[in-house]
C-alpha cells in the first residue's frame, strides 16, 4: 500500500525539528530544564504552549533530575511524556534513567549530544549518551534534522508498544544538527496523531488479584516502583532485556509503517547500509558524521574503490544479527567512536561491533577511530585517510594500531 502523504517543507534546525515532532505527537506532559545545545527544543515547545498550539502541561522543573522524574511520574499516571537534555543534564538524570526504564515508562527524550565536563565544553560528541548505554533506554542516533523529526514521532510509537514499554532516546549531534538549518518535510498533524495513536495500557494483576490497567488509577490501585529483594529483582531485569529484544522487531516495523505514510525509510530502522553490500573497506559510525562518510564513499566509488558505510541508527538494542550480516564480507572495517571508554579496549561502538563479529566465520580486520570529541570537526580528508588506512590493513593483512585518534594533536 503506497499512500505517501503530501508534506510541507519547513526550514528547521535539528532542535526545532524535534520540537515540531513533539508538538504533533499529542504529548500530554513536557517537563524540562534548559541546557545547551538542547535549549531550542524546550524554547520552541514553550512557544507552542504559550500560543495554545498544543494541549500539553509544560513543567519547567528546577533540575534535569526533576524533569525526568516528573516525566516518569506523568507517564505512569497515563500521560504521554517528553523531555530533552544533553551532557551534564543527562548525567544528572542518570539515576532516574534506570528508574524510568525499570518502571517501564515509555518516556521519549531527545538528546542534543554534547561533551561532558571537565574541561567544560558545550559542543558535540557522544560521551553523554554512551555513558547511559546500560540504563535500559532505547537509543536512536540520527543523521540529519529530517531524521530527528521522523525519529521522535517513531520513538513514541516504539516506546509505547506493549511488547516494548521502554523509554527511548533520540540523539542528534549537538550544534552540527541541533543548530543547523535544513529543509524538513513535515507530515500533517492529524497524520502524525493517527500514526502514533492514543496511549494504550497493558493489563496487570494488582495486589487484590484484580486485572487493572498498568497506570496510577484511583479506582484500580497499583503499587508502582516497589522494593524487590533478591527473590524477585532479577526477574524484573530479565523482563527489561526481553523488552529490548522485542524492540529490535518493533523498531523495524515502525520504520516500515512510517515509510508508508512519509516515503522516508532509514535502512531497516536499526542499521542503514550505504554501499556496504559489496564493499572491501567499510566504516561504521553513528549520527551526522555518516553524511560526511557517504560523500567520501561516493567519491571513492567514482574512482572504482569498493568503499562502504554502515550507519548504526539504533545502538540500543544493539542489532547484532544485522551488524554481522552487513559486515562479515567486508575485508577491513573502521569503527568510528565519538566518545571514549577510558582504559577500555577501544570506544563503546567498536567494542560491541568487534564483539558481534567474533562468532562470524570470516572475522574481518577491524580497527577503531576515536574522533570529534568536544565538537572537533571531522572533515572528508580525515575520512579519506581512514579508508586509506583500511586499504593498507588489507595489504598488510593485519591491524597495527587497534585504537587510533583522528584529528588530534599528539
Amino acid at each position, binding site marked *: 500500500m503506497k499512500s505517501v502523504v503530501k508534506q510541507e517543507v519547513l526550514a528547521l534546525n535539528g532542535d526545532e525539528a524535534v520540537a515540531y515532532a513533539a508538538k504533533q505527537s499529542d504529548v500530554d506532559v513536557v517537563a524540562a530544564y534548559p541546557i545547551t545545545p538542547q535549549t531550542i527544543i524546550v524554547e520552541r515547545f514553550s512557544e507552542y504552549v504559550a500560543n495554545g498550539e498544543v494541549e500539553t502541561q509544560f513543567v519547567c522543573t528546577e533540575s534535569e533530575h526533576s524533569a525526568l522524574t516528573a516525566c516518569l511520574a506523568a507517564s505512569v499516571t497515563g500521560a504521554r511524556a517528553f523531555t530533552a537534555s544533553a551532557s551534564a543534564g543527562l548525567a544528572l538524570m542518570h539515576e532516574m534513567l534506570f528508574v524510568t526504564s525499570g518502571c517501564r515508562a515509555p518516556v521519549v527524550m531527545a538528546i542534543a549530544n554534547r561533551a561532558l565536563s571537565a574541561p567544560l565544553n558545550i559542543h558535540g560528541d557522544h560521551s553523554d549518551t554512551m555513558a547511559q548505554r546500560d540504563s535500559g533506554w532505547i537509543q536512536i542516533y540520527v543523521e540529519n534534522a529530517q531524521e530527528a523529526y521522523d525519529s521522535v514521532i517513531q520513538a513514541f510509537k516504539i516506546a509505547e508498544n506493549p511488547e516494548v514499554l521502554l523509554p527511548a532516546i533520540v540523539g542528534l549531534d549537538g550544534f552540527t544538527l541541533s543548530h543547523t538549518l535544513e529543509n524538513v518535510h513535515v507530515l500533517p498533524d492529524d497524520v502524525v496523531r493517527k500514526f502514533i495513536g492514543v496511549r494504550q495500557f497493558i493489563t496487570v494483576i494488582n495486589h487484590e488479584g484484580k486485572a487493572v490497567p498498568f497506570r496510577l488509577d484511583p479506582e484500580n490501585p497499583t503499587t508502582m516502583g516497589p522494593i524487590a*529483594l533478591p527473590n524477585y529483582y532479577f526477574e524484573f531485569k530479565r523482563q527489561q532485556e526481553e523488552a529490548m529484544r522485542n524492540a529490535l522487531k518493533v523498531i523495524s516495523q515502525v520504520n516500515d509503517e512510517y515509510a508508508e505514510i512519509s516515503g522516508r525509510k532509514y535502512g531497516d530502522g536499526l542499521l542503514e547500509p550505504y554501499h556496504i553490500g559489496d564493499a572491501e573497506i567499510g566504516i561504521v559510525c553513528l549520527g551526522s558524521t555518516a553524511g560526511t562518510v557517504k560523500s567520501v564513499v561516493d567519491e571513492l566509488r567514482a574512482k572504482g574503490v569498493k568503499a562502504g558505510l554502515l550507519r548504526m541508527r539504533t545502538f540500543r538494542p544493539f542489532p547484532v544479527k544485522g551488524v554481522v550480516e552487513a559486515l562479515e564480507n567486508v575485508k577491513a572495517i573502521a569503527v568510528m567512536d565519538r566518545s571514549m571508554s577510558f582504559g577500555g579496549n577501544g570506544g563503546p561502538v567498536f567494542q560491541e561491533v568487534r564483539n558481534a563479529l567474533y562468532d562470524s566465520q570470516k572475522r574481518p580486520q577491524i580497527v577503531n577511530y576515536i574522533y570529534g570529541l568536544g565538537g572537533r570537526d571531522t572533515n572528508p580528508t580525515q575520512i579519506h585517510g581512514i579508508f586509506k588506512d583500511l586499504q593498507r590493513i588489507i595489504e598488510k593483512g593485519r591491524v597495527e594500531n587497534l585504537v587510533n585518534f583522528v584529528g588530534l594533536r599528539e
Partner: protein
Amino acid sequence: MEMFTEWKFTAKDIAEKPDLFLSGHRACAGCGPATVLRLIMKAIRGPTILTNATGCMEVVSSIYPYTSWALPWLHTAFENAAANASGIEAAIKILKKKGRIKYEHVDVIALAGDGGTYDIGIQALSGAVERGHDFLFVLYDNEAYMNTGIQRSGGTPLGASTTTSPAGTVIPGKLEHKKPIADIMVAHEMPYVATASPYYWRDLITKVRRGLEVDGPAFLHVFAPCPRGWRSDQAKSIELSRLAVETCVFPLWEAINGEYQLSTPSKVLALSPEKKKPVKEYLQVQGRFRHLFTPKYAKMLEEIQRIIDERWQRLLKKCGITQPAAKKE
C-alpha cells in the same frame, strides 16, 4: 471567610473508616511514622494518588509482591517525591482536560522522611512549591536517616547521638541545629504549612484534610518518633510525641497564607506558660541524648533549653501572642 470545609468527626468515625495503609507492613514495633501514615490515610476525601520518597516507610510498605497501599502509590527515588507529585499532578490536569480520565479531581500526596525533605529532597520540594503544583507534601520527621541505620540529617536536633554524629569523648553528638524546615516552607509564600504530632491525632487528621483542600501546594511537618533510632521505649512513641509538644520542642501551628497561628495544644502553653515542661523531661527518656546527662556535657543541655525557648518566643511573636506572664522559666 471560611477557607476550609467544616469537618466534624469522632474517634469512632475515624476507627470505622477503612484503613488505606494496610496492616502487614514491616515497620518496627512502636514505629511513629507507621502510626502517622495510618492517621493520614484517615483524612483521604476522594480519588487520591500517593508518592513516597525512598525511606523506611517506602521500604516497609512495598516489599514485592506485597503492598500495604490500598491506594495507587508510586516510589521512584529518594530526592524527588515532590517532583513525582509534580508529574502526577500535571498528568491528571491534562488527562482530565482531554477527557482521558473520569475524575473531577485527584488529590496528590507526597510522603518523605527528614532525609528526603530537609536534605536530599529540598531542591525538588522547593521547585515544586515554587511552581505551585496542587499537592500535599507530608514530612514524617524521625530526625535521622533511620532506614540506613540512624545517620544524622538536617532534621536531627542539636546534641543527638547518631551513627554519623556519635557522642564521643570530645564531641557531644550533633553540633548543629535542626533546620527550621516548616519556616523555610512558609518563606515560599505557599498557601498552607502546618506542624502536627500523632498524639494530637484529631489535630493531625484535620491538618491533612486542610492540606488536601487548599488549592495549591501544602506542607505538613509531622513529628514521628523512632524507638530504634532514638533509643526510646517502643511503648512510649505516642507519649514522646506528646512530650515534644508540651516542652515546646515541637510546637503545633499552622501558617495559612503566611499567617501563623498556634494550634490548640501549643496555644494552651502560650496562654499558661507554667504548663510548659522543661526540655529535660523529653530528652531524658531517649538514649540518643543520654550523654547530655553526664556532668561533662551538662552545658549542652542548658544550650538546648535556651534554643528551644528562643525558637518558642520567636514563634509566639509570629503568632502575635504576647504572653500574660512574661516570666522566665
